């Protein structure tokens, strides 16, 4: 069988680009870029940058300026926190009145204003039980707890 060489050809750059400089000359990598001046005019190195006035950027004289929040810091301490009561009640304190701290020895914790003070504190507890007469150190008189 007769053999015949086939003919082949390689095609490349088959479509030469036609470059037409436009007014704002935007030729880049053989691709024509159409530039449309936008309101804030941001033309840079032949590339149109879309500018959106957002918080954090200032547009001025056609240059995008990056804005960075400054760094300040608030300094402060604990504020008007109740002074922790003493860990032990002095012996002469029989009890404290309303608006004072009381200590419930069975629970080893303090209560304030009697609000969290349950009614079942033993009478011999260091803390104050409602209905008991207690000595007010502040007022220097007996009062009902």
């Amino acid at each position, binding site marked *: 069988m007769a053999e015949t060489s086939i003919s082949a050809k390689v095609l490349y750059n088959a479509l030469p680009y036609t470059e037409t400089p436009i007014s704002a000359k935007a030729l880049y990598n053989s691709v024509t870029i159409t530039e449309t001046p936008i309101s804030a005019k941001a033309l840079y190195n032949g590339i149109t940058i879309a500018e959106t006035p957002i918080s954090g950027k200032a547009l001025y004289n056609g240059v995008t300026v990056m*804005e960075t929040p400054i760094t300040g810091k608030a300094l402060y*301490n604990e504020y008007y926190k109740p002074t922790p009561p003493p860990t032990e009640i002095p012996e002469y304190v029989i009890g404290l009145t309303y608006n004072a701290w009381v200590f419930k020895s069975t629970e080893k914790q303090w209560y304030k204003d009697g609000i969290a003070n349950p009614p079942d504190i033993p009478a011999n507890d260091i803390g104050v039980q409602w209905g008991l007469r207690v000595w007010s150190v502040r007022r220097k008189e007996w009062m009902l707890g």
Partner: protein
Amino acid sequence: MPINMQYEYALPTIEALLFKTGAYTYEVIYPELLHNGTTPYICRNLKKRVVDFSTSPPSWGSESSIDVETPSGFTNPITPDNGILGYNFETDEILLGLGEWDGTSAHLSTTSAKLLAIKRDFSAVNVIQSDLFALAQTAVTDAARIAYYIQFYGYGGKIAGILELFSDSGSANERSCIITYDGATWTAIHANTRYDYAQQGIEPIWGASDNFLGWLTRGHGTNSHFISYPALSVTAGSPGGLFTTEPIYDPINHQVIWIEWGAETGATQHVWTADPTDPFTATDVTPTGTKTDNEGHTIDLNVDCKASGSIFSDGTNNWLVLRVFDNPDRLFFRAMKVTLGSYNNANAWDIIADPSGNDDFLIYGSVRAINPTDKLFLPSPLFIVSSGIF
């Protein structure tokens, strides 16, 4: 040895107004300041956080924001320097002066500036004075620009404020201008009976029974003024000194504290106290002595400049906190505190450090805490420090 504060919390600002909203809660309202490489005072939003001191450590709530850029109409709204915010006690609005950035200055320098009123609940922003420069020119006919300072406070339907004016681009040609609003009409006053040096801030003051008395101004070259309430009459004066006299109202002791700054001569920079009913008759309580910061700088309590004061309290300690910077060289700036009433006692003064022990920062903006219900100033539970903002 600098005194360490217990806590710090980052905020993008140099100053704030605080509003007491509960036994342990405060709204912290501040301008978000943006640095664009030239100026650190671009401001497009006002921000708010609630700080709660009932927990340990105190907790900060989420940030809310309101746009001030769009209502201002400015492309690059710029705030004044320290003394950025004010408050209208009558309408419960933050008062914020904004100008159009000129594109080159590190500070406010403009012929286009407005006064905005922002509802404290961030429900609205209104421009209540749309052309501060034109208003100022009605009294100061050769005014060429507003620069550095704009601040306003309102009370009982009246508003008083200041602008720093210059007659040209040179910094030596200051003009003294006060703005008032009587409920119907805005008025500019060329306040030059004493000197024609600039007005740089404004401070409301009350009497011993919490009766509102009026406003004092921070005056360059001792050119301070008292603006009476409700008459809005203007009187020039100073507690003494030679340089800028800055008033701070102490709501704990019902006292005006004056501090002095601006010298580059080594001259004494004073501290005075005065009864608010006679604020220019002051007692000199200037300290003497020195303090040393962590970097080995010596702070001379007598001659170093004293500025940007605020009243701080943590419930136990009540201090004047302020910026102190060396005179004459202005090479370093520090935050300091002094126990209220003990100004001439060097032992009552300390340099402030953050919880890490760093003291390389300064107080540049003031902080004012406000009881919006009783319409009073309060001591503030915090103050704000920053680095490199001048």
